[in-house]
């Protein structure tokens, strides 16, 4: 999934389009996985899955699961988490290397029961020791602690006893369960405590990864990684698929071509004009790209930015935007419209408060209201407010969306200028607060809207202008929001829903960010031979091949039709 080279992709797609005009057929996409309902049952082994996911570089053939640039090739397929949490599937949990877990009453201690009978792919037995070792290694080497578990999450100790691993925290740590249980891949102690790995686990190249996962790294070259099924995998009979081909795609265009031709069956691509380019090519081509985060306008709330720190201006923008149009024209309908509550639907439907959205008046575009609001701030079509929005060069879909935004804001009296910047320059400005409006998206999705709203609204994620903010780029500070976010850690499920709804109310009241469209997990799949894909009806995992460790769940569900005969 790489948007940055979409310029050429769009050019190429334009060429393709003009080449096959007249051939375009309308295709209805019902995202069916093709598997008969509920038959997740045993299948015969066989088949190969080829992944098309643009990485923009050839493979380094290093499989250190702690290396943030390379863990996509190692986690999931080779290294497994303790518990898988499905972000898109209402946080449904699948026990992996842990069979069970239990929180203490004060939510400061977490005990995992570790699975028996699991073997590392070199034949050695897996045990609770490996789990404790993995987490303690992260304490010893802060470079490995990618989720700041020992610092931010307040982890204070991890010990193994028998088949149990106990984690203690300095504060209630329930929101970090996703990171601890799902995002960390367990590594073998007997490898990481000796030789090169022990000396420098962070720069360890790990060319032959030893894991517990369903696949073994078979061969790796700069152009392709081939994974083969692990014959001693602890889930008997799985994986059904015997081989994964993971070619290195430097650009979207070839990856999209391979998907369209069926050469690759599993895609995580942005495909412009997906209907004619991909879906119309075969009845077996499907797509389901669930939204997980919001894309939208980040207004600078710092008083030094006079216009955007004014509530009426932000309210006017939020009221003026026709988000369906933006999604339809800017994103070609491939990313759904967002809403001002900040809750991404349908993914997080149960947290969504339609009544609040309607009563706040943001349920549909209202140009008159927007005009009035803007007039109260002293601007009008005859005396327009001049604003500049920064965006990233090469993100052509965002450019298209912003063109629609500009058009919609014109009549109410806002003259928007789009300033496309190189990614590095853009991020510099975004982090340090050097912008009026920025078009961006929080990046880090989690199993509920809390994770995004926390990044967006928590004042500790912000910083004064000129200093790097970690995620609250608009510089929002509201004690009530901070309190709500703090309470979430100890709240039960029902209270958590109510907290998210209260945070939504703040989104409606203060308009700290103006969502326009959803940001999705790009996912395309071909069912001519391979079945068992995640679907809206069976969202057992995040479907993109670049989502780790969800890629493992997908591979454990897939099977080959041809092999069943």
């Amino acid at each position, binding site marked *: 999934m790489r948007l940055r080279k979409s310029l050429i992709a769009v050019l190429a797609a334009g060429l393709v389009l003009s080449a096959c005009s007249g051939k375009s057929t309308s295709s209805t996409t019902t995202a069916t996985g093709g598997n008969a309902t509920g038959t997740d049952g045993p299948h015969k082994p066989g088949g190969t899955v080829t992944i098309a996911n643009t990485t923009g570089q050839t493979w*380094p053939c290093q499989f250190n699961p*702690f290396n943030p*640039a390379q863990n996509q090739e190692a986690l999931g397929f080779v290294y497994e988490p303790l518990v898988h949490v499905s972000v898109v599937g209402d946080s449904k949990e699948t026990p992996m290397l842990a069979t069970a877990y239990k929180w203490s009453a004060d939510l400061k201690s977490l005990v995992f029961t570790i699975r028996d009978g699991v073997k590392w792919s070199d034949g050695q037995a897996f045990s609770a020791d490996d789990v404790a070792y993995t987490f303690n290694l992260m304490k010893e080497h802060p*470079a490995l*602690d990618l989720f700041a578990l020992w610092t931010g999450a307040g982890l204070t100790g991890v010990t193994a006893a028998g088949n149990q691993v106990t984690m203690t925290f300095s504060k209630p740590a329930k929101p970090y369960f996703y990171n601890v249980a799902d995002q960390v891949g367990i590594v073998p102690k007997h490898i990481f405590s000796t030789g090169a790995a022990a000396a420098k686990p*962070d720069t360890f190249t790990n060319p032959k990864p030893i894991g517990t996962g369903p696949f073994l790294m078979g061969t790796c070259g700069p152009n392709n990684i081939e994974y083969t099924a692990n014959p001693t995998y602890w889930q008997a009979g799985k994986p059904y698929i015997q081989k994964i*081909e993971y070619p290195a795609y*430097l650009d979207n265009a070839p990856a999209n071509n391979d998907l369209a031709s069926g050469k690759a069956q599993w895609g995580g691509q942005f495909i412009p004009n997906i209907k004619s380019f991909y879906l119309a090519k075969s009845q077996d081509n499907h797509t389901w790209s669930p939204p997980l985060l919001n894309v939208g306008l980040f207004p600078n709330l710092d008083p030094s930015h006079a216009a955007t720190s004014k509530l009426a201006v932000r309210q006017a923008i939020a009221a003026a935007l026709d988000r369906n149009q933006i999604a339809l024209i800017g994103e070609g309908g491939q990313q759904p419209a967002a809403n001002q509550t900040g809750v991404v639907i349908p993914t997080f439907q149960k947290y969504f408060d339609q009544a609040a959205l309607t009563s706040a008046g943001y349920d549909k575009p209202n140009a008159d209201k927007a005009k009035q609001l803007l007039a109260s701030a002293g601007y009008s079509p005859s005396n327009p407010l001049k604003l500049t929005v920064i965006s990233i060069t090469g993100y052509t879909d965002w450019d298209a969306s912003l063109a629609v935004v500009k058009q919609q804001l014109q009549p109410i009296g806002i003259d928007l200028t789009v300033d496309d910047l190189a990614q590095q320059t853009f991020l510099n400005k975004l982090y340090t607060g050097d912008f009026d409006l920025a078009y961006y998206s929080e990046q880090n999705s989690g199993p509920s809207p809390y994770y995004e709203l926390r990044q967006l609204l928590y004042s500790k994620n912000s910083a004064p202008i000129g200093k790097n903010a970690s*995620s609250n780029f608009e510089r929002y500070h509201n004690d009530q929001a901070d309190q709500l976010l703090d309470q979430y850690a100890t709240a039960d499920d029902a209270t958590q829903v109510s907290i998210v709804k209260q945070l939504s109310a703040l989104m409606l009241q203060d308009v700290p960010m103006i969502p326009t469209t959803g940001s999705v997990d790009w996912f395309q799949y071909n069912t001519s031979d391979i079945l068992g894909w995640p679907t809206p009806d069976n969202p057992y995992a995040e479907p993109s091949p670049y989502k780790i460790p969800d890629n493992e769940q997908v591979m454990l569900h897939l099977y080959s039709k041809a092999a069943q005969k």
Partner: protein
Amino acid sequence: MRYVLRRLGFFALTLWAALTINFFLPRFMPGSPLQALRARTYNKLSPAALEEMLTSFGYKPHENVGVQYLDYLGHMFTGNWGVSIGSALGQPITQIVGQALPWTLGLVGVATVLAFVAGTVIGVVAGWRRGGTLDAILPSVFVVTSALPYFWVGLLLILVFSVWTGGWLPSDFNYDSNLQPGFNPEFIGNVLRHAVLPGLTIFITAVGGWVLTMRNNMITTLAEDYIRMGRAKGLANRKIMYQYAARNAFLPNLSGFAMSLGFVISGAILVEYVFNYPGLGYLLYNAVQNTDYPMMQVLFMLFTVAVLVSVLLCDFATAWLDPRSRAKG
């Protein structure tokens, strides 16, 4: 001898200046490797851990720039080039460059040589038959082709030979990723097929320049007295054309060719980018995108050295071929 020494001194000075710029220029770019890594990992990971990680791989944002600069100069000469801190985080630069270099040399090198040879031959013939059909058509065509931008020709070729013909020729990459590299006809054929379009792009845009200069040199040379003398003596046309005219007309082109060979190593960045050809040009593009200082430093260094060495060799060759240049020194 004094000439050679002066050239060598100039070489050393230029190299030092280029290396110094190579070190500082990337650091003046907006952004940092840390920021690039944060963006690439979706801002999901702890910045502190990422900084530690980059430090382990040799990124030292807090160390004195002077010390870093001296270290860097030393490393450039000892070949201790470190590891990538960009998108191939942790992969040794020598390995990355080693993988990319043959592809660039093969593609851009061969295309450049072919363009030079073909351009020279066409130029000789066009100049010889001045005013003929060939001479009437070709120069005007080549004025146009040599002015075409690389990437545009590339996109056009992709459209015609790959898209319209339904994938007749591959439009990207160096070989099909489902093949295992090896010396067998299938693999070699595949590599060649993948090289056709990018090679043709370079050929089309480069050949025009050679044709035009060669033709013009040829015309000037043909006006010389010794050509008239040859004709008067009744030498065969072919002999005059190749051995008397072309040989002399060829000299200025040769030095131009030596220079262009120096630029081969930097690849045709745009061509490699359009065709996703994993050569050095593509690497440079990626390194800049990801603020990969070590990678950029090594690539710039290689490019500079390649150009400087070819200029140096060209100087020596000229000194050897043309006594006048020595006399002036």
